[in-house]
Structure formats: structure tokens, C-alpha cells
């Protein structure tokens, strides 16, 4: 993977003659003290990070943390006071206004919290706005229509935004951003104005779209659950400063400081963690070539009452119960034919723990985790599941 966006030592200080702020920051004054003394508002304080191509990078923080300022520095809706924003090797902060317009037209699109649709334009005209600005001819309506279909708005082209529900309006916002096929999507609290059900739905659809489109997405949110669900990596901000950058697991499992720890304390882990996070290695296993004696011996060694049978390339075939193996030995059989129980519960690795719990509770046999090709990845053991929920697991 290559780096798409690189932010180096970014500062934004609001107020007259903002350079005074650097001295005060260097002296170690707090944001509040600088506000009181110099009348300057520190929006961003030495922010550095990089976003990989095709990554969903979530910037999370409470209001006033500087996250909105940060995302606006990426397309220079706000001009940083100091520092660099490098996109594809080009420093955005140094571009001429003409070059900046080109970058905004071709490379970066933005989705807004309150949709920011143009009420005097139809849905189609809204979606075509970016292309219209670029001077694309009537072809722009075909591209816009395509983008609207992609977000599930077929048939709404001639309506006005005011006639649509919030969720649908934001789909228009998304279509408008996708229509000019940018590399980068900036999403500023894009789902925060939606009610919880619609919001979940939009999150899922965004992930589905991302599977297909592989955009580089910078997503701003104040909602930790949303951040954990969407983010490949998360940047947690407070008072314009970076608190931690890491994968959802790292943020939850290894909080960098007290603030992050407090922040993640109340997370409902069951919605964040998936089967992949709580599964254990499925050792021991046997192959279909083994006989009932081998199976029984392995089970005795481990003190378990059933064992999984894996075929070529670790394909899950089923499991064998200890009593069935013992009976087969008594009957003098040497093969496993007819002993393998194939009707065993399986789950996909990305199933959330919340959905996993009822399955594990009612299953007769251990639940196994298999990938889309039927290969076994691991098994779910009740004990490790409980440990994870108690927050003591290391998620491995």
C-alpha cells in the first residue's frame, strides 16, 4: 500500500496575527490560557498522520476537539497556519488557488453533516454539480445517474432535496461526492444527523460501497461505535492534539493514555468485536485419513469430547464425538466413514459478538469460524468469549 495523504506538523490557530500563538504553545500554555491571554483559538496543535490508499481513516473526537478543522485543512477550506498536507506528493498548503480548484474538482470530494444540498436543484442536478462545475457536458447527467443508482436512489432523480427524508438526502450527498470519481472522500460527520437505524444502514452501505470502490476515506465522527465499525484505523483527538492513532483493536486493547481509556470505557464491546477477534486456534484436529483410534487418542490427550475433521486446505468436513469413535473401535472399524457429523454450526469471521452469543449459547457442538471458501479459521469457546466481554481478553 502506498501513502495517499500525509499530514506533517499541522497547526491552525484562529485569530489576528496567529503566529503569536506558537510562542505561547512552546511555553507550554494550555488552549484556555492562550485564549484568555492572546485571544487566539488553537484549533490544531502539531497534528501528524498518514492515510494509506484505500484506507478508511476515522478521525474521532468530541466537539471542540479540532476534528472539523482538521478535515477542512485537507482540502484547504481552512488554510492551516503551519505545517504540510501532502496528497500524492503535492503540498496542498502551497498550491495556487487555480491548482487548488483543480485538486478539489478531480481528487477530493466532501460529504457534509447537514447534507448541504442545493434546494433549488433537483436530485439529479445536485449529483451532477461537481461535474457541472468542471464544465462536463450532458454526459454529466449519465454519470450522476450512475452515482445515484449506486447509492440506491434510482427513480428519485427529478425530485427536489426537500421532498426526501434525511437518509435519502445524505445518499444524494454521497452520490454528489462519488459522481466525479474522486480518489479521496472526506466525510464530515456524514451520518451524525441521521436517526440511529438509518445511520447503521448507511454505515453498512458505505462499507459495501468501499468494498467495490476502494476510495481513500477520511471520516469524521464523535461517535466511538461508528469509528470502531468503519475505521481501518482511528485517530483520536482532544483539544486539537492527537491522542492515539491505531486500529480499533489497538484503541480498545491498548489505550495510549488515560483520556483514551476513559473514552473507550463505555463501548459495547459485543458490537465492536467479531468472531475473528474472539476465536481460538482449533487444535487439535484430525484429517479424514485418520482412523477412529487416532481420533480418540487425540481427544483423550486434550480432555475434549469431540474433535474437528479437516480436509484438504483445512476445509471443514465436520466433527467426531468421542463416544462414536469408541463404538467404532469396538465394532472393529478402521475408517471414519459414517462417523463424521457434518451438521455443525459455523459462522463467518466478521459476525459481531453480539450475534454470536445466542448461537454459542444454544449450539450442541463448538461453533467453528470458517471463511468464504469453507476453510476453518478457528473455534469459539465459551470461556474465551466471556473473558473477552469482561474486557480482559487480548482479542487474540
Amino acid at each position, binding site marked *: 500500500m502506498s501513502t495517499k495523504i500525509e499530514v506533517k506538523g499541522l497547526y491552525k490557530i484562529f485569530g489576528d496575527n496567529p503566529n503569536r500563538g506558537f510562542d505561547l504553545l512552546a511555553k507550554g500554555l494550555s488552549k484556555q490560557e492562550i485564549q484568555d491571554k492572546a485571544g487566539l483559538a488553537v484549533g490544531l496543535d502539531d497534528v501528524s498522520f498518514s492515510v494509506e490508499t484505500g484506507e478508511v481513516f476515522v478521525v474521532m473526537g468530541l466537539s471542540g476537539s479540532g476534528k472539523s478543522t482538521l478535515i477542512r485543512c485537507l*482540502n484547504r*477550506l481552512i488554510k492551516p497556519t503551519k505545517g504540510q498536507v501532502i496528497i500524492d506528493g503535492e503540498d496542498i498548503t502551497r498550491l495556487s488557488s487555480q491548482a487548488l*480548484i*483543480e*485538486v*478539489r*474538482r*478531480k481528487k*477530493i*470530494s*466532501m460529504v*457534509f*453533516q*447537514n447534507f*448541504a444540498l*442545493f*434546494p*433549488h436543484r433537483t436530485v439529479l442536478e445536485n449529483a451532477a*454539480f*461537481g461535474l*457541472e*462545475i*468542471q464544465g462536463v457536458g450532458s454526459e454529466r447527467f449519465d454519470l450522476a445517474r450512475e452515482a445515484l443508482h449506486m447509492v440506491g436512489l434510482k427513480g428519485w432523480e427529478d425530485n*427536489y432535496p*426537500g*421532498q426526501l427524508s434525511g437518509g435519502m438526502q445524505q445518499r444524494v450527498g454521497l452520490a*454528489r461526492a462519488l459522481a*466525479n470519481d474522486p480518489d479521496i472522500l*472526506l466525510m464530515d460527520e456524514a451520518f451524525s444527523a441521521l436517526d440511529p437505524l438509518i445511520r447503521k444502514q448507511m454505515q453498512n452501505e458505505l462499507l459495501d460501497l468501499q468494498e467495490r470502490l476502494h476510495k481513500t476515506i477520511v471520516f469524521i465522527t464523535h461517535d466511538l461505535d461508528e469509528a470502531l465499525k468503519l475505521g481501518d484505523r482511528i485517530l483520536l483527538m482532544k483539544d486539537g492534539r492527537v491522542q492515539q492513532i491505531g486500529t480499533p483493536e489497538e484503541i480498545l486493547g491498548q489505550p495510549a493514555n488515560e483520556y483514551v481509556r476513559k473514552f473507550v470505557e463505555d463501548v459495547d464491546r459485543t458490537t465492536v468485536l467479531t468472531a475473528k477477534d474472539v476465536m481460538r486456534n482449533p487444535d487439535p484436529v484430525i484429517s479424514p485419513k485418520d482412523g477412529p483410534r487416532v481420533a480418540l487418542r487425540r481427544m483423550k490427550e486434550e480432555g475434549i469430547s469431540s474433535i474437528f475433521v479437516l480436509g484438504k486446505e483445512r476445509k471443514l468436513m465436520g466433527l467426531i464425538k468421542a463416544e462414536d469413535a469408541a463404538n467404532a473401535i469396538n465394532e472393529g472399524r478402521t475408517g471414519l466413514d459414517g462417523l463424521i457429523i457434518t451438521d455443525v454450526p459455523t459462522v463467518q469471521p466478521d459476525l459481531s459478538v453480539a450475534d454470536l452469543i445466542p448461537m454459542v449459547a444454544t449450539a450442541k457442538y463448538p461453533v467453528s469460524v470458517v471463511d468464504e471458501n469453507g476453510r476453518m479459521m478457528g473455534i469459539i469457546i465459551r470461556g474465551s468469549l466471556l473473558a473477552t466481554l469482561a474486557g480482559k481478553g487480548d482479542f487474540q
Partner: protein
Amino acid sequence: MRIPIGDWIEAIVEFLLANFEFFFDAVSSGLGSLAGGLEGFLKGVPYPILIIALAGLGWWLAKRSVGIMTALGLLLIVNLGLWDETMESLTLVIVATLIAIVIGLPLGILAAKKRTVQIIMKPLLDLMQTLPAFVYLIPALMFFGLGRVPGIVATVIFAMPPAIRLTALGINQVPRELIEAADAFGATPGQKLYKVELPMALPTIMAGVNQAIMLSLSMVVISAMIGAQGLGAQVLRGISRLDIGLGFESGLAVVILAMTLDRITQSLGQNKIKD
């Protein structure tokens, strides 16, 4: 010591008269021929056709009742024998409003964009709106001579402020997020103005145009004092002859014209915005 503001103004007027006569002459003949042409057209078209056209416009832009009221009102004017005078006044209103828009719209946009322009313009607009019209009738007369041109100029001065103010207001009221969206997609300042700001501000701007028309109509009688023909002149004649009937009938025609123009222009700009 008394500050000689009056002397200064007189000096300025004399200076302008002495040095810029060619400019005033050009404006005068330009406005004169514009108004003359329009008046010739309005009077030349047979009145039933014009009534049908205006009533149809009212029906189409506003609603059916507006169309019917327009037709009935204008027919009453014909019946009173004031059709030609009404067309003369309508000419004055249309020309003055057009000029007010042509000058006012860019100034309003400028005021919305530049704080300094707004700061300078605010007291000037207050002055234009509140200075008694008679005060600048005399200089207008000196610059442009007797007749309808000084009437038009005086009317423009009085009618332009709302066009400027409401244009600026309309543009300032465009939600910040929409401006941001236009910027984020790489709109140039011109594209932002034509594709976002002006369309969004249109209802407010049209309210300004409507106000300009109404204020122009209120100047009809005053401009008659310096020689503009039309309903105003009839009102003045009624007053000077103590002809209460003539005065009232002419006044009524002004009201009918005002209501017609108001209803038609009010509906402009509200057509396209949907919720």
C-alpha cells in the same frame, strides 16, 4: 460658527453643471429615448391586447384570481378614460425599476461580498431613502431639464435602496454550508455566485424588486411636479382645480396599477423553490 453645508452643495451642483454637462445630456437623451420608445409601444398596442397579455401574465405567474382582477382593474381604467395616462406612468415605473435593478443588483452583490462597501453604502442608502424627494427634485431639474427624465432619475434614487439592501441580504442569508459545499467541489467565485448564491437569494431579490416597483409608483405624483406626464399629472390637475372627482379617479388608477404590478411580481421568484 455655522457649517455652510448648503453652500457646499450649491458649489458641487454648479461644478457638476459646468463640467459634466455632456454626461448629463447623454444620460438625458438615453433615458428619454428609452422611455419614449417604451411609451410609444405601450400606447401603440391596442388596449384589449395589452389587457389580455397582462391578465394572462398574472394568471400564469400567480393564480387565476390575479388574472381576473388585473383584467377588471385595467378595464375600469379604460372606462375612466385614463388609459394613456396609465401607460405613461407604467413607462416611468418600468424604466425606473429596470435602472434600479441594473445598478442595484451589482451594488447589492458587492455589499454582500465586501465589508467596506457595506459600511460605506449603509448611510448613503439611508440618505437616499429618507431625504425628502423635493430636495433633490430641483437639482435633478437643473441637470436633466424639465420632463420625464428628471422624474425617472428622482424615482431611481428613491426606489433603488431596497433593491440593493435585499440583494445583499439574500446573498448573506445563503447557508454557510452551501457555500462551503460549492467551494469543496472546486467552484470559482463566479460559479459560486451564479450557480448557488444568486439562485438561492432569488426570492429575497425579487422581494427587493417588488419593493422598488411599489416605491416607484409612490413617486408618480412627485415626478409630475417636474413635468412627467401620466396619472400623477392628472392628480395634480385635480388638486389645482379642486376637481375632487378627477383627483380621486386618477388616484384610483394608481392603486389599480400598483396592486396589479405587486401581485404579479410577488409571485416571481417563489415559483421555482420547492420544499
